[in-house]
């Protein structure tokens, strides 16, 4: 770097630049929080969904699946699984309930989590709620997730 560009100039760009963009980011965060309620399907959130999110978390579902594209890439995307399963919470519950304890020879298989009826209802309602979130361009791109 040329001598005309001094260390104190570099330092000022660092402090000035990062402070400026941090403040912009905080401003954008504020604005985003004004916009989020228009598309986050919060009307669907109730006690059952809240329980469902706990079930989702306490069985580490994100360790295999993605949810709106975030998580692990070992098992299908679940942000639109409610639609993929024919908009049926019963189908979701049935699938989760029917997983074989010992797995399937040679293949990937979801563990049997031994969920109670209440927990099954919760997780199904939770996935239905997430499916109702209005994502940009209606992501995921198609029914396969």
């Amino acid at each position, binding site marked *: *770097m040329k001598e005309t560009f001094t260390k104190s100039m570099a330092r000022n760009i660092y402090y000035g630049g990062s402070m400026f963009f941090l403040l912009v980011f905080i401003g954008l965060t504020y*604005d*985003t929080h004004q916009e989020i309620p228009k598309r986050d399907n919060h009307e669907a959130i109730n006690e059952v969904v809240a329980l469902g999110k706990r079930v989702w978390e*306490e069985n580490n579902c994100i360790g295999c699946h993605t949810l709106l594209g975030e998580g*692990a*890439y070992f098992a*299908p995307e679940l942000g639109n699984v409610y639609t993929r399963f024919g908009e049926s919470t019963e189908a979701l519950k049935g699938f989760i309930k029917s997983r074989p304890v010992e797995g399937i020879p040679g293949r990937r298989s979801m563990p049997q989590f031994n969920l109670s009826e209440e927990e099954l209802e919760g997780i199904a309602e939770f996935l239905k709620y*997430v499916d109702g979130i209005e994502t940009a361009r209606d992501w995921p791109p198609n029914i396969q997730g």
Partner: protein
Amino acid sequence: MKYQSQLVAQKYFIAALSLFLGQILFGVIMGMQYVVGDFLFPEIPFNIARMVHTNLLIVWLLFAFMGASYYLVPEESERELYSPALANLMFWIFLVAGALTVLGYLLFTYSELAALTFNELWPTMGREFLEQPTITKVGIVIVALAFVFNIGMTILTGRKTVVSLVLLTGLVGLAVFFLFAFYNPVNVVLDKYWWWWVVHLWVEGVWELILGAILAFVLIKVTGVDREVIEKWLYIIIAMTLITGIIGTGHHYFWIGTPDYWQWLGSIFSAMEPIPFFMMTLFAFNMVNKRRRDHPNKAAVLWALGTAVMAFLGAGVWGFMHTLAPINYYTHGTQITAAHGHMAFYGAYVMISLTMISYSMPIMRGKVANSQAAQTLEMWSFWLMTVSMVFITLFLTAAGILQVYLQRFTDTPITFMQAQEKIEIFYWLREVSGIVFLIGLIVYFISFFVKGEEPQGVEA
């Protein structure tokens, strides 16, 4: 070694490397589960293996950052560590908490662990990378605060250099942004929005400050280039990191229910995120070319140059590849993401940790550098691990492109599992590369025990 208390770093590095081995072993298990789906099922389901793999990575990198700080800060501050006793105490607390957490993952089902640790009182578990029980998270905060206090007091009561102040900023940021791990609303959009304040602002924000500071320190030591020059580079690199990286968080706000303007902001700013990494590459090569001395530790120089190149490729190029919103629409949450994640973490954070370890461990063991034989073996491990990581990334990228096409891009998309079966060959190749990586790591460990005539020279 100029100050006795720098020696604290040694045990941090040993712990870091031991956990690194554990991380890779679980990586190899997961790679196997990708092709033999019932491998170790139901004893170690994939989600558990993955959690151990990623959590061990985070914990060992934290050990390495702490060790690096304890080594670097006294030397920069020209005084002994504020409290070596506190550093030792925190080491054991962190190690025991980390070990108990990993044992908890392996000995109980995750839901049992959640019940056992009273997750219902303050639910924070079950989110990617933040799977630790809430009580462990509290432990992390305590360790981080004590650590930042210890390092901060050393820096603030000693000589203040740009390197140590940038490092301190990075460490304070690390501690502060981790606090968002405790915010976990039921609303998934809000949950995800703030989750990224930990994950993105760590790895694409403050961790890069830590990386830059460590790299600058090692380059000052091994090249003998004037500190003024190196500090100017450091400032401008981290300036670009934060200028692009903070709003660059927006590339995670494309598809989670956040406003559409993030598609523009996230694309534009994150497209510039490779710039600081490219500057880092220029920086490292320039400094080595302008070196005023030939440091006998050639291996450390190789790691430093390797960090700069691989961080640019993994974080910069592979990140850019899928960061523009119209492309990310198809690639989001596929093996493309996995490919990027692997090379970025290895290139940036694993390699900077190994750079620091390579430079400082011989000194802490009473010599300026290892013997030629030991260094040769260490360089072998460098190439084995780095080349196999390049191949892991290439195979996952190939798998990802096919996955995107088969499952999302074509007019006749097939299901996730059908697509996975079609791309199986790439998972086999990735697993073979993973085993080569493990061999490289074992070679690395062996290099610590190779004797031979040690080079003479003054310590710097």
